[in-house]
């Protein structure tokens, strides 16, 4: 069964260091999302791609976060420098919907980031 792949599963980093997460969506899915989930809360959208283009990054802290999807397939989310408050689960999801409406998004297993 096709699934969204994320790596690494777990990452511990020191504050002020750089960290990167990788996501490979389900083959053929045009829309890719990055969500951040703080412990005890629901996921919050950070950035949405339609193919290689960013369609929504209004909640992405652009002073330290960046995201790219160069060939419209896999994607990388980077944090530089990491801060203690960035400790969270980072979830990637993909959807075949091209309208921008996330009607059925499939989620990866996430990357658990701990900043120390």
């Amino acid at each position, binding site marked *: 069964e096709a699934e969204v792949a994320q790596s690494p599963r777990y990452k511990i980093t020191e504050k002020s260091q750089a960290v990167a997460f990788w996501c490979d969506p389900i083959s053929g899915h045009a829309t890719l999302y990055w969500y951040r989930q703080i412990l005890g809360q629901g996921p919050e959208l950070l950035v949405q791609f339609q193919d290689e283009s960013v369609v929504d990054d209004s909640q992405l802290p652009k002073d330290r976060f960046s995201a790219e999807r160069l060939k419209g397939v896999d994607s990388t989310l980077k944090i530089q420098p990491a801060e203690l408050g960035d400790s969270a689960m980072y979830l990637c999801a993909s959807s075949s919907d091209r309208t921008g409406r996330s009607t*059925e998004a499939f989620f990866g297993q*996430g990357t658990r980031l701990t900043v120390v």
Partner: protein
Amino acid sequence: AQSVTQPDIHITVSEGASLELRCNYSYGATPYLFWYVQSPGQGLQLLLKYFSGDTLVQGIKGFEAEFKRSQSSFNLRKPSVHWSDAAEYFCARINFGNEKLTFGTGTRLTIIP
């Protein structure tokens, strides 16, 4: 603001008992509504969704949800829970205008023998 509210942070149910998890949505127009489940340390899995039509929606793993416009609710139900249902459950909606998926804060379900 367009949102969903899950009033119960934590629910404990005996195995074999029935379950109902509450979800309320704000803003009058009928939104697209979803229920997702998340096992510890895992991603989210879609249980069911409501867009329009029949207000009783059947999902995977024996779950169902009923859309009630008069109560602005979309509660998740299961007639008999299994120990494997222990997880975090999230209600979510599509926001009109930006078409983005917005999640509630989740309800943690504990199953006791």
